[in-house]
């Protein structure tokens, strides 16, 4: 354990649904301060990998360690508390809560007010509530004025699609994570929004000091942000390395384009 530790390390992780192997023998790692992209065709197991890491599913085999500590078997909220925050492939906000409240939920795992404190509004609870609000505003502020000001009090359902995605990321940031896992953050965004988001991902690392693991289909984004790219197909890692290495890997090309007429 004396060697420099990986932030997140998956070893031989397998997950199957009935007879379908969504992940098998998956091994890779993420180091602190890296931006790692995960690519692969639809059904390659990318989102399943996210779900397994964040505790939504338990893996059938293998180990997952975060900062050296075992993550397998933890409930999603415990994983979040350890410092892994995520977004979802299809946006999942709390639509009837306000934008600020959505972000404030993110602060939940960093705070501890209980029943008595809440009923009697003890000074500690009030201070904590104040802090929750400030931190939530900070996370919303990461996206400039888009989620700030008058918008704070609007229900999340009133937001445009791109802003919903941003709010989902702000909510993840509000959990004060070390590792942010973004599941197709640019899906459904227009080209200019996509470009902007690319900068946001980079800023998450440069300004907030976070490590980012991102599933992405848009190759311009992948090329623009990635320190390293991991390519999956049929639940296996088929390539890993810099963008150029992976993009030119014959197996990756085959996975995306299919085999040449094999006869």
């Amino acid at each position, binding site marked *: 354990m004396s060697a420099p530790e990986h932030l997140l390390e998956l070893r031989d992780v397998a997950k199957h649904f009935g007879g379908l192997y969504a992940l098998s023998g998956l091994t890779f790692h993420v180091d602190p301060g890296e931006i790692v992209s995960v690519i692969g065709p639809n059904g390659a197991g990318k989102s399943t990998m996210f779900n397994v890491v*964040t*505790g*939504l599913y338990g893996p059938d085999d293998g180990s997952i360690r975060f900062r050296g500590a075992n993550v397998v078997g933890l*409930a*999603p*909220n*415990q994983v*979040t*508390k350890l410092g892994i*925050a*995520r977004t*979802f492939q299809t946006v*999942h*906000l*709390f*639509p*009837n*809560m*306000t934008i600020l*409240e959505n972000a*404030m*939920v*993110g602060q*939940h*795992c*960093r*705070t501890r*007010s*209980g*029943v008595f*404190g*809440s*009923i*009697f*509004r003890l000074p500690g*609870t009030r201070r*904590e*509530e104040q802090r*929750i609000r400030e931190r939530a505003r900070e996370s919303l502020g990461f996206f400039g004025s*888009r989620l700030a000001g*008058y*918008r704070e*009090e*609007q*229900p999340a*359902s*009133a*937001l*445009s699609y791109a*802003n919903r995605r941003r709010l989902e990321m702000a*909510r*993840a940031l509000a*959990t004060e994570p070390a590792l942010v896992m973004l599941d197709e953050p640019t899906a459904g965004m227009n080209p200019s929004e996509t470009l902007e988001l690319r900068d946001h991902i980079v800023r998450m690392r440069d300004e907030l000091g976070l490590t980012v693991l991102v599933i992405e289909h848009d190759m311009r984004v992948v090329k623009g942000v990635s320190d390293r790219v991991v390519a999956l197909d049929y639940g296996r890692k088929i390539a890993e390395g810099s963008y150029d290495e992976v993009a030119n890997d014959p197996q990756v090309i085959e996975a995306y384009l299919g085999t040449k007429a094999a006869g």
Partner: protein
Amino acid sequence: MGGVPTRSIVRAGLLGGAGAIYVALVGLYTKFADLELVGEQVTLGRVLIVAPAFVAAYAVTRPRVVAGERHLVALRGGLAVGALSGLIGAGLFAAALWFADWFGVDRIREVFVAITEPLVDFLTFDKGVPAGLPILIVLCAAGGVVGGFVRTAPAAIRRPASAGVLAVILLGLLQRIIPIVFVQLGFEADWLYERGAGLTWFGGLIVFVVAAAANALWNQDGGRTRERVRRNVGKAPAAKVGLFVAILAIMTILPLLLGTAISEVLGSVMIYVLLGLGLNIVVGYAGLLDLGYVAFFAFGAYTTGLLTGAFLNTTTGAATPALSADLNFYVAVWIVALLAAGVGLLIGAPVLRLRGDYLAIVTLGLGEIVSVLTASKWAQPLIGGPQGMRGVTKAEVFGLNFQDNPQHFYYLALAFVLLAAFVSWRLSTSRIGRAWNAMREDEQVADAMGVSTTKFKLLAFALGGAIGSMGGALFAVSIGSLTPASFEITVSITALAVVIIGGLGSIPGVLVGALVLIGLPGLLREFEEYRPLIYGGALVAIMILRPQGLVPNVRRSRELEDEEVSQDAWSRDAKGEAEAVAAVLPGGGLGVEREDLE
């Protein structure tokens, strides 16, 4: 006709007729034939003759969407469609009556016990079958016309008119309360109410005019006054406090004005407010559908009996329960609440993984288990089984008797209600309330965002259970003796209906829901045997007309309000109007963000 398909008119008319026949079959007409609302002529029974045709016409003249466009029915078309559907319904109703007369009322009565000669006399206005039927038909057609009118007339007319009519009916129904209040306040009531009956004609007219005028003022300048008041009352802290103080003041003096008999009803309203507040935490805040809430009610009642030294009823006389303590009520009730929180954890633990329908079914079963246990031989040495317990403490303090004096009991219950409401309010606006909210909206995502769903589900069950058990404790004090008949599934259903009709997640809603569901039927003894029918009808009506409940949770009402305003702006399709709305609404009026318009 008037833009409404003929098939729809016929169908609505026939449904209206079938509705009237149903009302006749369950015996509502005969029951309410003599309940006078205004003068001697307008009885509740006669209102019920008109009502099915009214509802049918109101429903069938609704705006329709044709090829993506919303078409309103014009006034003239609305009246004609209403009349036609009323006539069709009346035809069916009259035919059924004719058939009953021809076939023999006594022979039908063997199956449908409510079909009697007095019913036929009532429906034919004492003129016999062929002669009285035209009156019936004309009346139903008129009901249809009114239904069409209420839907299609200009808002400036139909709103005040509807408000006036509703006020007259409501005050007519409250004939046993309002005169008492008047007399208690030192006013004459004779001009308003007939002695021991409904409103006088003059009184009815006054009520109508006052209500209509008030409504017109409320809605003047296109509802802007209304919107402003609603916004300010909803948001400004001073207005909120003022409203709260006013409600509290009314609740405090109410039993003094209404006297003993009605205070008894108010006492049971308060018990259900307590149950509703507890269930609201489980269902309204945490989103866990609990159909077995009676478990906590029963637990609270019986544990209170045990802890305060009640006796078992046995065939040989009173006996001391197997487990018994002789505590003061005010000590015991906290122990009861604490134990009930423990029971909440026990009930919550096995259902943690269940959601929605499955959760509802399992809690239903757990509630039934508790109901059955209260009546079981097995639990007889402890809580008396079928014979139950008696001699529950009167919780006397400062010489006040909370068992034999309903007015005193009301205040005891009010104190507990205020406590429970305070706890609910503080929790709902805290980190805990936020966690429940997130969990209710999307459990999996809340979990992924760091909310321990296990912990917060159990917390909801424990707190909800504690408050529900206090309802049970108060119930035990108020009636003094406990039998299993008081702890059946109807308690769960009623408490849930109170929460839903009031508005899920809304504290004032619980109060309104309990007043409507427990208070109104309790005030009119005639309603008593139709309680389940009224609950069913009220639930269906609320779900269709106002699914967010009578007094919705602020969050949801804000949303619906914005939506409504945006829609109005949209339909007016006038730039100036839209801008005015955009100025009022911080979000930029049409539910579209400014940024995205650029």
